């Protein structure tokens, strides 16, 4: 049973605050908020957003889940087990936007509520049989499982809440209804699996698996997919010839190859569905329904087949331990949205599109560098990974798909856009004019050299996949003192900066990110000349991509544990004082040169609404009685 309350999950006045005119006054002489600090009607006072009750966003979640099982030994070594895992979720979302906010600017308050009810259960029937014959160990598992998910939701949004104190608690009082809705989504997975484990003296290990998974999300004749796997292990350190080794504690070689299925599409993609339209004849509602999605009755499982070679080792009585993994994953029948030319009346269809390949290496290493008799100890943990992704083929074989921005040999997330060649300089006025541009504007690379900028001049600008990433933790301890810090690096990825796209108008109306912009006296090639009559600089998509490489010190911890003798004198069991700093340093050209906030992102895009990376310093005292 779980219950949680969360406030303000989407409220973040940070981006809006950045745009404020510095000439505005937030408070009048009496200390009251000035709602419109300047005569720009769009730039209301961001402090009004945080007045209690002005913006309310509240989510309550209830969850009841359980895992019930029963087990029976049928014969010696043969076991039957049934697992049942019901999971109920109830979710209530409430939102209120008062009149004195930027969203309403004095207009009637709005309220919204949404409720969702989920019921998910998993039911598994498992038969296992274990048998030992001499030095041979056998294990057989057979499994059948079904997982079913029901998700219902309903919502309403209204405008004209009479008293702001009502918030979203009486939508019936509002003067108009903006929208109502409810919905039901159901899906099911039905699976069968057989697995065989075998080992000989814990030296040679074999696991063979065969899964057959069925998903309701796929086509009538393509619901099921088969996913075999085999894993071999050789525990070399258990061999007789290694028994005498003084420096090898553990050495294990692993090889495996296996497939897994991915059903990563929303339900109901196999069928064509209608979409609702809104119209009226006079004042009579004329809601309509028209073809909205185009179904793909042939949708089937996406399959990822991974070949993996790994070594686990421990040397010199644990002074050096670690693992090395080499892997290659081929994903076939990739499930992706295939964008369609919109003149056919549809925008996209979900399809099994093509094949990608991921290759990489992962290394983890733990070392004890120094361990003196005097009590000084220094250990390190190192992780390193390198991955490369490439599209091998697409719907029409190894042919680029410009419409979907997917290109053979490139990652799925490759950025493909205009490239900035610089800024048109005063001496290039004629050339700028020939491109219908002007001095001080962005000079876009004319890739094909045809004397004009067209869609054909777009180029590859990198992807969010790093060349490599890695981290190192160092720990030092001496007598009662301990110190550790963690450094993390990600190198070679490209990021799209929302700040440089949305907070870089260079038009003078909104406060914006500080950039090195062009003026006749500052002939830079970084950013274009400001222009008061533009919404954004022309071709501003050419100035939003940056090298996203960074090195971060994630944390530094320092502490001292008092000797037990002192603690006991104070009638304590133990006494420790400590201090830690989270994220004390970020090194990145995106920050130092372009005033970005934090280049670390999960999807390659740095949102301009993101809260800046915070540095948290903690001092603490840990006392046990």
């Amino acid at each position, binding site marked *: 049973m779980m219950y949680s309350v969360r406030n303000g999950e989407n409220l973040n006045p940070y981006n809006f605050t950045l745009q404020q005119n510095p000439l505005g006054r937030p408070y009048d002489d009496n200390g009251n908020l000035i709602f419109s600090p300047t005569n720009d009607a769009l730039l209301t006072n961001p402090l009004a957003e945080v007045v209690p009750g002005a913006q309310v966003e509240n989510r309550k979640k209830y969850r009841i889940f359980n895992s019930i099982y*029963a087990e029976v030994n049928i014969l010696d070594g043969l076991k039957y087990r049934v697992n049942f895992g019901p999971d109920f979720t109830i979710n209530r979302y409430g939102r209120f936007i008062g009149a004195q906010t930027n969203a309403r600017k004095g207009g009637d308050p709005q309220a919204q509520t949404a409720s969702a009810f989920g019921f998910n259960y998993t039911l598994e029937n498992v038969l296992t049989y274990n048998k030992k014959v001499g030095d041979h160990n056998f294990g057989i598992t057979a499994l059948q499982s079904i997982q079913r998910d029901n998700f219902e939701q309903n919502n309403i949004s209204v405008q004209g809440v009479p008293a702001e104190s009502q918030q979203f608690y009486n939508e019936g009082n509002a003067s108009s209804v903006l929208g109502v809705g409810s919905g039901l989504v*159901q899906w099911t997975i039905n699976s069968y699996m057989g697995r065989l484990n075998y080992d000989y003296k814990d030296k040679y290990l074999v696991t063979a698996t065969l899964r057959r998974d069925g998903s309701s999300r796929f086509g009538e004749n393509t619901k099921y997919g088969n996913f075999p796997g085999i894993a071999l292990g050789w525990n070399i350190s258990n061999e007789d010839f290694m028994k005498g080794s003084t420096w090898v504690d553990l050495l294990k070689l692993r090889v495996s190859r296996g497939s897994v299925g991915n059903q990563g599409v929303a339900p109901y993609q196999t069928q064509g569905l209608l979409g609702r339209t809104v119209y009226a004849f*006079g004042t009579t509602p004329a809601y309509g329904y028209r073809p909205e999605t185009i179904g793909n009755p042939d949708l089937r499982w996406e399959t990822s087949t991974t070949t993996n070679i790994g070594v686990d080792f421990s040397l010199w009585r644990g002074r050096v331990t670690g693992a090395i993994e080499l892997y290659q994953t081929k994903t076939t029948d990739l499930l992706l949205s295939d964008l369609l030319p919109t*003149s056919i009346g549809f925008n996209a269809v979900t399809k099994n599109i093509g094949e990608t390949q991921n290759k990489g290496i992962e290394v983890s290493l733990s070392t004890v560098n120094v361990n003196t008799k005097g009590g000084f100890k220094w250990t390190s943990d190192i992780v390193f990974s390198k991955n490369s992704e490439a599209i091998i083929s697409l719907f029409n074989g190894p042919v680029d798909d410009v419409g979907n921005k997917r290109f053979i040999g490139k990652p799925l997330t490759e950025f493909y856009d205009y490239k900035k060649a610089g800024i048109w300089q005063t001496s290039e006025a004629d050339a700028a004019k020939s491109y219908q541009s002007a001095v001080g504007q962005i000079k876009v690379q004319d890739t094909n050299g045809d004397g004009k900028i067209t*869609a054909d001049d777009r180029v590859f600008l990198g992807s969010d996949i790093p060349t490599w990433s890695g981290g190192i933790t160092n720990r030092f301890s001496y007598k009662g003192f301990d110190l550790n810090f963690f450094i993390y690096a990600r190198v070679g990825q490209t990021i799209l900066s929302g700040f440089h796209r949305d907070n870089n108008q260079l038009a003078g109306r909104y406060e914006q990110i500080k950039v090195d912009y062009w003026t006749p006296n500052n002939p830079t090639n970084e950013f274009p000349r400001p222009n008061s009559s533009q919404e954004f600089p022309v*071709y501003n998509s050419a100035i939003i991509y940056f090298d996203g490489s960074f090195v971060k010190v994630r944390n530094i911890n320092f502490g001292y544990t008092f000797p037990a003798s002192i603690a006991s004198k104070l009638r304590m069991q133990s006494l420790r004082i400590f201090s830690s700093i989270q994220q004390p340093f970020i090194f990145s050209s995106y920050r130092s040169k372009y005033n970005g906030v934090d280049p670390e992102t999960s999807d390659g895009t740095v949102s301009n609404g993101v809260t800046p990376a915070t540095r948290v310093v903690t001092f603490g005292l840990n006392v046990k009685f």
Partner: protein
Amino acid sequence: MKSRFSHKSFRILALATLLMSGQACKDVLKETVISAIPNDYINTPKGFEDASKAAYSSLRNFYASERGLTMTEYGTDIYQAGADGSYKGFHFYDTQMNSFVDIIQQVWEELYRGINTCNAVIERAPAATVSDATKKLRVAEMKFLRAHYYFILVQQFGGVDLRLTETILPTKKTSRATETDIYKSITSDLESALADLPTVKASSQGSSDYGRATKSAAEHLLARVYLTKATSSAKAADDYSKAATYAQNVISNYSLKLLPDFASVFAQGSGEINDEVIFSVQYTTDPLTNMNTANTNNGDGNKLHLYFGMQYDVQPGMKRDIANDRPFKRLRPTTYLLETVFKDRVNDSRYKKTFKDTWLSNNPGTNLNTSFDNSKAKMTLKAGDTAIYIPGVEWTVAQRAAKPYQVLVPSAYTAALFPTLQKFLDPTRPDLTYEQGSRDYLAFRLAETYLILAEAQFKSGKTTEATAAINAVRRRAAWPGKESAMEITPAQLDMEMIMQERARELAGEQMRWFDLKRWGNLVERVKLYNPDGAANVKETHNLRPIPQTQIDRTEGGSASFAQNPGF
């Protein structure tokens, strides 16, 4: 036997398991759509009706939207760039107007969704289980809409993808038809719809049918189509005579009438339904029927009230309020529009009725610093006093100084300060920020029919008849008692007169760019009258760029679906 549970509870659980997994064998993976509606709903009588209603909704994408306005009034001889807003490429004809602009993509996508919906209804009609009368009527309406959507597309983009059957399977094979093929489809759709459309005029339609296609609407559209086709690559010798015939039918056959007062054409509320309206795109005061929150590309209220306003709200004595609307200042009238087209303000009432010239103080104060009027440094205003007045002509400093308010004279007009088109202002919105205005958008009105007739007859050499048609519009526009002074003689009628008359009557009504393109003088007149567009405008700007997504996603790319020249 070891068990965490008693034998009894184990048996119950095992039984439950059996029951649940028994069901698992076959049907458990069947996917049943419950809260959405599957495609075959359109084959039911109610679904057939609902699909035909859906086909109308695409009108809202183009009419009374920022998209449609940008693509029809920006960069013309009558409107130049205002201070604010996106899509300035449509004012400047520079590289900001390119194949990536979102509004071009949005119009393209939504009109083609509308076309596909029309195709679905037309193709499924033979099997539909509705009465034959309903079947015929809905098919005729769909043909009217399909023709309407293709007419917008062919004017904006040239020869586009001609699709007359419902898309059942996903495809990437698309291609460009010729303009001739598109026009052939448009005229054939409209002419075959005439027989089955109701002959009732719009204002007499049943209240729950108001806004559906009528025969007069189809004839008006045919008149406009033939007039436009006459100067296109698809032209035929009889285009002008057909245009004149259809226009004359609209004028003669449906007891439609010009309202006596030009201003009342734009009366909001019940006044929106009147005898001058031939076809209007419907908007309402109810958010549930006025916008599609799930897809604002499908409809988001009448937004034209937003874009023509000047920046009154930062002036002394003023603040933004509902009555004066949100001044987005996207378009500024050109000097040509104000000084040449609307030169006559003695006989012609339309300058005064088209532009808002007075703002009354809603933010009073004493010793307010004046802003644009240098005839005085300070002024004091009570609530309701005039705060800003635009006389429309130059006043001397002394004349201005004599007034207790700021006087905005033509020499002080800027990209943010100018006479404000008031045809679309919407003071009935529930609050200050509300964007989804409720005015119907009057897509076809009788005054335009007269102007189409005049142009078609003039082009056919029937100057006397053309003069009579244009005089019908001019007489109505007269100040009381000035009717005969407004009339022109056949000798005074020329294309310049027709071009000016359309601007006087229809300024801002999403028409001008189409007009200039039809007359073949977009470049000439933008160079003459629009200082923002003059430097860059070229003949290739008679077409918009095809959305890049259409080209990129088509099999074969630009070899299969060519971009328009110059983009």
